[in-house]
């Protein structure tokens, strides 16, 4: 079974987690001034990276927290997990941690 490191609970089995899409998407700082294009990008436009990708995950059936993960989309390997609000850690190219 795939084991995911929750930044709050430690290593836990994958069925406890839900995927939350691409990470580090910032809401427009002044929403009432945002253009249609900015809203479009914020709401709908997502990367579809092949390789290491920063994603949101939620430990939905555990501590309930959202956090971020670096996952290699070609191998499904989790390279790192970190709390929401933190910058993604550097990971060695090729993946092994």
């Amino acid at each position: 079974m795939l084991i995911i490191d929750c930044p709050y609970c430690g290593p836990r089995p994958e069925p406890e987690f839900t995927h939350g899409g691409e990470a580090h998407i910032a809401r427009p700082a002044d929403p009432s001034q945002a253009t249609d294009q900015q809203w479009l990008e914020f709401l709908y436009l997502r990367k579809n990276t092949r390789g290491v990708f920063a994603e949101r995950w939620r430990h939905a059936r555990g501590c309930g927290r959202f956090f971020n993960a670096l996952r290699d989309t070609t191998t499904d390997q989790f390279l790192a997990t970190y709390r929401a609000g933190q910058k993604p850690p550097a990971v060695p190219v090729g993946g092994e941690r």
Partner: protein
Amino acid sequence: MSDPNRRPPRIDARDWLEPLPAATRFSFRGSPEAAAAASRALGVELSQVACRANAVGERAALWLGPDEQLLIGAESDAGAMREGLVAALGDTPHSLVDISHRQVAFAVKGAHAEWLLQSGCPLDLDIGQFPVGMCTRTVFLKSEIVLWRTAPDTFRLEVWRSFADYVASLLAEAAIELSA
């Protein structure tokens, strides 16, 4: 190494699955300051360590998340718990919701408790990984549960009321294997 031909002895469902009495339950959310105030009110320390439960008498506080605790007490303690918490928390921002009737509890106990739960729970419940005093929200097959190891061979299993039959039935089905 374990003997592949080893068979656990026969067991009787009544020995390992015990419905626990009705209880008072609160879902508490709040900052460490609010948790400290709640700890004083309850006389039970709300753990700041992940996945740890503390209990004093029949009152218990189970860490479910960084700002979330499940508070459990005797059914007759509801009024005293609520009044104590409300008085101690005062204006400190927090959320306190009575969920006494949302879920029910079972004790899963005996030499096979870990094995039975492991039939549907993907966590490693070996006592080295899941020691006495550890608690967490997790899953039992398709149902969300809260597990708390209260003794080496005893777990308290909290499950939402409408899922209780599902969980108990599947545990009973797993137990058939032990008596085969």
